[in-house]
């Protein structure tokens, strides 16, 4: 599992882990049933306090993204289609909120902003 932790951006490391795991589950990089590295292994890999890893794992389990099966191993849970759809939209919504703020600050009209988003979608799909 490839995670990148920025130690100095002020966002708690456990949150960064949670967001990246959720994103990878939503985008299908982590398929249902995929086994996650142990707390110990991920702590060594990311040079993070094991408590931080277990906090992130625990919260992801509570949110239903991960599940603990047969005692020990933690795996990606099969997601409901509705949940998965929402999980895909959530990070996008967050990015668009930033873009929307910027559009308003710069005085770009909603119509112009939407047109720009459509154009950007078209250019990245080519």
């Amino acid at each position: 599992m490839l995670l990148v932790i920025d130690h100095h951006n002020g966002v708690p490391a456990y949150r960064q882990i949670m967001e990246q795991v959720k994103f990878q589950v939503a985008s299908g990089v982590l398929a249902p049933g995929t086994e996650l590295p142990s707390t110990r292994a991920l702590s060594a890999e990311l040079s993070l306090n094991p408590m931080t890893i277990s906090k992130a794992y625990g919260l992801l389990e509570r949110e239903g993204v991960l599940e603990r099966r047969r005692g020990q191993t933690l795996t990606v849970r099969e997601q409901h289609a509705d949940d998965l759809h929402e999980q895909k939209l959530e990070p996008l919504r967050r990015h668009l909120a930033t873009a929307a703020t910027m559009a308003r600050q710069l005085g770009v009209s909603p119509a112009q902003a939407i047109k720009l988003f459509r154009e950007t979608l078209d250019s990245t799909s080519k």
Partner: protein
Amino acid sequence: MKTPSPFVSSEPLVVENLSKLFGKRTALRDVSFKIPAGRVVGLLGRNGAGKTTLLDLACGLLLPTAGEIRTLGCAARELESAQLNRLGVVRQEPRFLDWMTVRQQLEFTASFYPHWDHGLEKRLTEMLELDGARRIVQLSQGDQQKLSILLGVCHRPSLLLMDEPMSALDPIIRARMLDVLLERLRDDGCTVLVSSHLLADVEKIIDWVVCLDAGELAVSASFDELQESYAEWTLHSATGTLPETFSETCVLSHEGTTKLARMRVCAADTASEVERFASMYRAEVKSRALSLDEMFPLLLKRRERRAKS
């Protein structure tokens, strides 16, 4: 030998109304906090804030003027070999038998500990690139710090007290040093208290912050909680209606104009505060989390504000 207290495993360090005076000078004043087991605590504070005094009190090198400090369940003034065997100390100005070689010093110190881990010693000597054949008197400051770290951890303590252990180490060795600490956490569930001015380094591993300011406790809190409550906001008002000053208690500092303002804030629930500010001032509010370096001066201000109110 005393029977170990039942609190040994849950809170390896308990500080209660601790004060220490040197003559008329107050080094610590009425400090109280508890460290739960398995935590990595960043002990922060400016020069002269009382960090070294606190660590010296914790290992019984100094005695309190008032109050109490309990280390591994035992009053620090009465630590015996049962506790000392489980306590690791890395001091800012280590004292060695400096006519010895590195290897001789390691063997000498190891002889006091029944559970000295020679395998760990060998591995760390290589990892930290320390030459066992050199005489201590010839070691650079950085190499002396490495030796001090080795002497502090090779008996695999359950409580490790470190006073500026990395100040003279280069960035590569510092990164390995942090990995060494993390390995001790994973293998031994060790509790670590580390004082350091290298905040960018310690923020990678700490999960609790104790901050001293002029001998008084400014903060003792979980690091996640602090990261989630301190932020920098940028307020942008298209209509130019931002006030000159903000009287809200969550605003710690502020600069800017009626159109664009930047402020440092501290709030229990920053997300809802962002919304409140956005609707109250009809402004766009952009929030950015703060690194430990940026947070540090605000932690000190917290005590000032408390004193004023």
